[in-house]
C-alpha cells in the first residue's frame, strides 16, 4: 500500500515569493492534516480536513497561508509572500476517521528554506 506522498521534497525561496506544497494521502483516508515543523521543534497543526471540509484552520496564518482539498483526496498548501519565519518542514498526514484515536500516517515532508 502506498504511503502519504508529498512534493516537492525541498524548496528554497526568497522572501516575498509564493510556494505550493502538494499532498496525496493514503487511499481511503478521509482525514488529512498539515503540520509545520520548525527546526528542533515538534509538529504544529496548521489545518485539517475531513473529506473536502475544513475542520480546524484556526492555526493557519490566514493572511498568507491557504489550504484546499477540493475533492476530498489530494491537498495543496500554499504560502503567498513567504517570510524567513516560515522556514520549516511542512508535514502532511492522513488517517481514517478524525475523532482522536486514529493513528496518523505522515509523508516525508517538504523542507522549506526562505532566504
Amino acid at each position, binding site marked *: 500500500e502506498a504511503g502519504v506522498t508529498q512534493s516537492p521534497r525541498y524548496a528554497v525561496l526568497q522572501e516575498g515569493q509564493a510556494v505550493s506544497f502538494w499532498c496525496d494521502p493514503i487511499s481511503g483516508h478521509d482525514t488529512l*492534516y498539515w503540520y509545520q515543523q520548525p527546526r528542533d521543534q*515538534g*509538529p504544529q*497543526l496548521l489545518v485539517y480536513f475531513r473529506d473536502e471540509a475544513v475542520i480546524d484552520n484556526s492555526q493557519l496564518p490566514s493572511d498568507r497561508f491557504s489550504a484546499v482539498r477540493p475533492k476530498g483526496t489530494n491537498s495543496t498548501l500554499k504560502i503567498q509572500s513567504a517570510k524567513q519565519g516560515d522556514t520549516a518542514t511542512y508535514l502532511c498526514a492522513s488517517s481514517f476517521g478524525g475523532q*482522536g*484515536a486514529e*493513528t496518523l500516517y505522515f509523508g*516525508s515532508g517538504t523542507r522549506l528554506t526562505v532566504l
Partner: protein
Amino acid sequence: GDSVTQTEGLVTLTEGLPVMLNCTYQSTYSPFLFWYVQHLNEAPKLLLKSFTDNKRPEHQGFHATLHKSSSSFHLQKSSAQLSDSALYYCALSALNAPRFGAGTKLSVKP
C-alpha cells in the same frame, strides 16, 4: 487549551541502560495519548498509544502507562539500543487533531 510538555530536550544514554522519556499533559477532556518516533530524515511514525487509565501498551520493547491522576504518559524501555537514537514526540488528542510536544532527542552511545 490542550497541551503536552516534554521536559527533556536531549537525553544521552549508554547502550544497555534503561530509557525514560517524560510526558505530561493538560486537557479539559479525557484524551488519547500517543508516542511518535522520528528517525533521522524520516517521517514520524506511531510507536504506541493509549486511552485507558493504568493500561500499559507495548511496542518494539517500549512501553508507556497512562496515569490520568498525574496527567502523565512517560515512555520507558528496559535496555536502550543504538537503533533507538531518534526524536520522540508525545502527542495528545481529544476529539480533534493531535497536538504534539516539543520532542525529546534520544542519543544512545556505545
